[in-house]
């Protein structure tokens, strides 16, 4: 198998607090192939955004990467000195933020923010940077881009601003784009458009996408593979079709069951009892065990590591351990 574009191994992110250290990410591993779209789902606080921030090296202090490694094309990037990591950000890994209304500097024109970013990373003059910026704005679907480029962010609507944000994340031609809930703050009517633009333009440029969201519908339509996080741990990862059709981890199954579908005949949606544990009160064993319908003794004692299930699937659940299968 070819070397993956991004490889995350046993990533641990910790936040020291007055009442002890919290593990926001606990030994998460996954790969991202070139040009692939990986969806990352989970409830709020499951660690989706922090995983994204860790990869791009922007975890807010006092939080820190306490273990594991992140490799981009085989090169470790989690321990680069600040100035070299800065040249990875934007240039090799772009990031799209959640709220387009607050992620653009209100005091500068779109042109200035774009050309500044382009010229930080690429060796082009102002005129060429501007030409590229206009072409990119045009590509993300801003009408009359050549004229609108000199407008300020507040002249654009929310959906248009998110297009500008996408243009900014992509303007230095990164190999990977981390999109952190890019549509959560937007109108339902423009969400699909934004996802389409993001997906198309990344496909054109061969950029891989890590799409962080809690919207399973978006994942189903957009992603090639999906990773499910629970309480800072990886519960399940695999091709989207397989995971949606036949979720193996009881948590994923519960998630899928809670999505309404048009063909469903039952009156009630399935609900997972209880709520995700706080980071300072994660139970021993499997983090999901108090809520799991298929829980047995081992789950309360021993933490399951991801188990290979073939065809690129991994599930962190004792149900799929060969030793347990024999017990049945």
């Amino acid at each position, binding site marked *: 198998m070819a070397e993956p574009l991004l490889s995350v191994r046993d990533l641990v992110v910790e936040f020291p607090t007055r009442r002890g250290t919290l593990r926001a990410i606990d030994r998460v591993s996954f790969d991202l192939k070139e040009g692939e779209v990986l969806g990352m789902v989970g409830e709020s606080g499951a660690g989706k955004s922090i995983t994204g921030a860790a990869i*791009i090296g*922007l975890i807010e202090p006092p939080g820190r990467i306490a273990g594991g490694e992140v490799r981009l094309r085989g090169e470790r990037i989690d321990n680069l000195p600040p100035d070299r990591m*800065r*040249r*990875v*950000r*934007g*240039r090799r890994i*772009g*990031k799209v*933020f959640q*709220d387009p209304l*607050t*992620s*653009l*500097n*209100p*005091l*500068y*024109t779109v042109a200035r923010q774009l050309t*500044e*970013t382009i010229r*930080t*990373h690429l060796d082009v003059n102002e005129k060429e940077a501007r030409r590229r910026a206009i072409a990119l704005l045009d590509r993300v679907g801003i009408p009359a881009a050549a004229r609108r480029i000199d*407008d*300020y962010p*507040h*002249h*654009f*609507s929310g959906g*248009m601003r998110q297009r500008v*944000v996408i243009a*900014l*994340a992509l303007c*230095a031609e990164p190999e990977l784009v981390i999109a952190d809930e890019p549509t959560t703050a937007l109108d339902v009517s423009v969400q699909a458009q934004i996802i389409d633009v993001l997906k198309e333009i990344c496909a054109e440029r061969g950029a891989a996408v890590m799409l962080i969201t809690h919207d399973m519908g978006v994942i189903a339509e957009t992603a090639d593979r999906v990773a499910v996080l629970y309480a800072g741990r990886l519960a399940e990862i695999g091709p989207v079709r397989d995971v949606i059709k036949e979720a193996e981890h009881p948590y994923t199954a519960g998630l899928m069951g809670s999505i309404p579908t048009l063909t469903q005949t039952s009156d009630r949606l399935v609900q997972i009892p209880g709520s995700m544990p706080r980071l300072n009160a994660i139970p021993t064993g499997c983090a999901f065990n108090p809520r799991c319908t298929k829980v047995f003794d081992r789950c309360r004692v021993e933490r399951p590591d991801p188990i290979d299930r073939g065809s690129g699937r991994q599930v962190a659940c004792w149900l799929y351990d060969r030793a347990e299968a024999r017990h049945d």
Partner: protein
Amino acid sequence: MLAFIIRRIAQSLLVMLVVAAVSFSLFRFVGDPISSMVGQEATMADREALREALGLNDPFLVQFARFVGNALQGNFGISYRLQQPVMELILSRLPATLELALISGIAAFAFGVTLGVYTALNRRGWISSGIMTVSLIGVSLPTFLIGVLLIWVFAVELQWLPSFGRGEVVGIGDWWRTGLLTESGRRSIILPAITLGLYQMTLIMRLVRAEMLEVLRTDYIKFARARGLSNRAVHFGHALKNTLVPVITITGLQLGSIIAFSIITETVFQWPGVGALFIRSVQFVDVPVMAAYLMMIALIFVVINLIVDLLYYAVDPRLRVERGSARH
């Protein structure tokens, strides 16, 4: 934009009229000027003649109209104490006050912004903690005490700088006499400028620090970092400009109060400005000078406010309302 300016000017005129009414009331409520103007042996007839000559027997509204009419022509009457036109007196002393206020205002702004940015960017450093501690002293020490301390250290003990007066002055144009062009003049302005500006500097510094810390937490700064912009571009290009928007207002208003409250500094350093003139006038119930001084301070505040509003337009594109917001 034009409508806005006209509206602001109309408001300013209203403010000035109210101040004129207050100033004018001084004439009626702060003792009887006649008794301080004439000698002990003046007869009742003499006093009555003087009262008639000064128009003090006319009805209130007539007197007020006359006061406003004269004020519009720059005529505030004759000083009771010095028997010179008030306007002439004030104009001859205004350059001293304005020079002092401008020098200390500019210094306060320059040092305040620099130190504020430094302490915000190096929040945990011990130099920053030192600056913040010292700034507390600057905020809490009364002006006259700072002035006396400075005189004691730099004029009495070290004998580096003069302790009073304005040094040698030279004329520019008809009435402006400046001390900034002579060696002794420049040396004389240092201590009073520090005294007058220290409080303002610490205020600006603390404000800049608080605003900057606020701005550094915003999404657009995180996004700027995620695009790999250099620290320099993030801090001074993106963060500082956003920090300065509210700082401009406060600084503008502070410039007004520097001029208004130069009274104490001018008294401590025997600085021949309008503040010192005002204090002498209060002692002698020289109402025309007091009224003119009040009007002048009000005018300065009003003008500065207007300039600050216009500066806002220059800095913040969101206020340029004529282009309409959120176009598609």
